[in-house]
């Protein structure tokens, strides 16, 4: 999967999304707290954060479904409040909730979407089979959506968002609850859209690997604020070394702390976490000083470490799990 993980030599076009102090308040809750960012054409931009961090609210404002309480944003040079029609013509959005009609078949849902988004008549059929193949639904395209599994529905929603090849594509948790194989297919397709078709993609995710492998730049968002924004590689630089995790009783930490290549020492439960520069060279020395470790784990930092660094807590992946499927189950066969 690494063939598309490194952002090498990508050039981005002009700024297509710009927000200035964008904020949304629900009652007393500041869901989105004055966010300013700019995103260039052809970029895959990730909003990474836990559930309730304000990712979906930000996306909804940019997609003109919610009016901001404060601040402004321009999408494809159009104001999201004053020129919402023009904004809607330039974007595609895939919601986190299922929004296909379950009485219709998958193909019919796509056909409706093609009509509503002005896909030209001679391209419709070809595009529909193209996206169906992409999400591997071609065999089930003529079944009613109500007999689809949650994962199939999710894939259909994605296919729909890609159908009209929008200039800017918003994806709210695009691979939530999908199996690894489908996720990778989707990542590859999103990457191809951005690299070859110059589609700008803004996605929300709480999956670290998704942000890391797919996104050109990642904004880490917590409590409605952007706490860090950079390429995944740059973000990881902030950690300043590799992570060495030791399972150890009674560690001797004082001599370790004085070593020049130790960046940070943390102790939680029966574990010691060390951030170490050039860890492969220095590991032996550390182990000699710290005492008898039961186990040693050495890894390069992930965005999870970055998130922890900035927010002081971890994204719990279990948080968002099931949301889509619960809603799918609830909405199904209810009429």
């Amino acid at each position, binding site marked *: 999967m690494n063939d598309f993980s490194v952002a090498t030599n990508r050039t981005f076009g002009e700024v297509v999304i710009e927000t200035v102090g964008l904020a949304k308040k629900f009652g007393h809750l500041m869901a989105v707290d004055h966010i300013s960012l700019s995103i260039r054409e052809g970029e895959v931009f990730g909003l990474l954060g836990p559930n309730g961090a304000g990712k979906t609210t930000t996306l909804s404002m940019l*997609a003109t*479904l919610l009016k901001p309480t404060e601040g402004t944003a321009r999408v494809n040079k159009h104001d999201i409040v004053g020129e919402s029609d023009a904004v809607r013509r330039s974007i595609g959005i895939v*919601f986190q909730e299922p*929004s296909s009609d379950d*009485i219709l078949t998958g193909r019919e849902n796509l*056909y*409706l*979407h093609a009509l*509503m988004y002005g896909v030209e008549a001679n391209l419709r059929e070809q595009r529909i089979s193209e996206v169906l193949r992409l999400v591997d639904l071609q065999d089930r395209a003529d079944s009613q959506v109500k007999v689809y599994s949650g994962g199939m529905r999710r894939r259909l929603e994605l296919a729909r968002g890609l159908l009209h090849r929008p200039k800017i594509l918003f994806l709210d948790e695009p691979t939530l609850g999908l199996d690894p194989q489908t996720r990778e297919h989707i990542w590859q397709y999103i990457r191809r859209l951005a690299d070859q078709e110059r589609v700008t993609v803004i996605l929300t995710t709480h999956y670290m690997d998704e942000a890391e492998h797919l996104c050109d730049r990642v904004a880490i968002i917590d409590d409605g604020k952007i706490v860090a924004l950079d390429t995944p590689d740059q973000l990881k630089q902030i950690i300043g070394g590799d992570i060495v995790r030791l399972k150890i009783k009674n560690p001797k930490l004082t001599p370790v702390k004085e070593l020049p290549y130790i960046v940070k020492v943390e102790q939680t439960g029966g574990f010691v976490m060390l951030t170490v520069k050039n860890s492969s060279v220095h590991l032996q020395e550390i182990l000699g000083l710290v005492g008898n470790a039961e186990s040693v784990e050495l890894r390069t930092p992930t965005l999870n470490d970055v998130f922890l660094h900035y927010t002081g807590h971890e994204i719990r992946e279990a948080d968002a799990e099931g949301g889509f499927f619960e809603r799918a189950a609830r*909405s199904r066969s209810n009429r």
Partner: protein
Amino acid sequence: MTELDGLYALWYREFKVFLREKSRIVSSLFTPLLWIVVFGGGLGSSVSLGGTNYQVFIFPGILTMTVLFSSVFFGLYIVWDKRIDFFKEVLVAPLSRLTIFAGKTLGGCTDALIQGGLMLAFGVILGVSYSVPMVVLVMIFMLVLASAVVSIGLIIGSFMESPEGFNLVVSFLVFPLFFLSGALFPIDNLPSWLRVFTTLNPVTYAVDGMRGAILGISAFPVMIDLGILGGFAAAMLVVGSVAFSRMK
């Protein structure tokens, strides 16, 4: 071009759903059939009005009922659409709110016309004799009535969040409209307090017009009926598109 495609898309969706949910057709025809067969047949065995058997006399009223009920309850589906978030997909599409409203209304009118048409065919069993111009005129009345009442249903639906709330509001509206329309009795000799309501009720003119067209019995000239009903429908279409343009 996009707006027209979008209009077609919205209509196509409603029509597909209608065809696939056969239970909708059956359930919406059941009540009118009960009225015409049991109530009309029972009372008709000893009562005749205006020189016509009572069962046949109320037939235009039951046609109205069919269109009225299926049209107004069409608004319920927009409440469902909101629930399943399908509507979000429609609202974010690059379509004007007017197009969305028009597409929904067309879809609802199609449903109502098919059901009204089935009911009209049932008239043959009752011994009503049709001519082509008569059927065309009745279909026009049904279409105008349907567009007015579908709009009402959509207006209510656009404000409602729950199906229960929708049903409550609608039953407070739809039964008075039906009973005060002269569907079940002639409106010529009513006491004055009742006459006020029937005259103000737009549905009265649908019943009267269709009764005039089918049986040749009417309190007002048929074209006056059509004019008043048409004016009401136009007003409802305007209010409906305004209600939709405000919807989030």
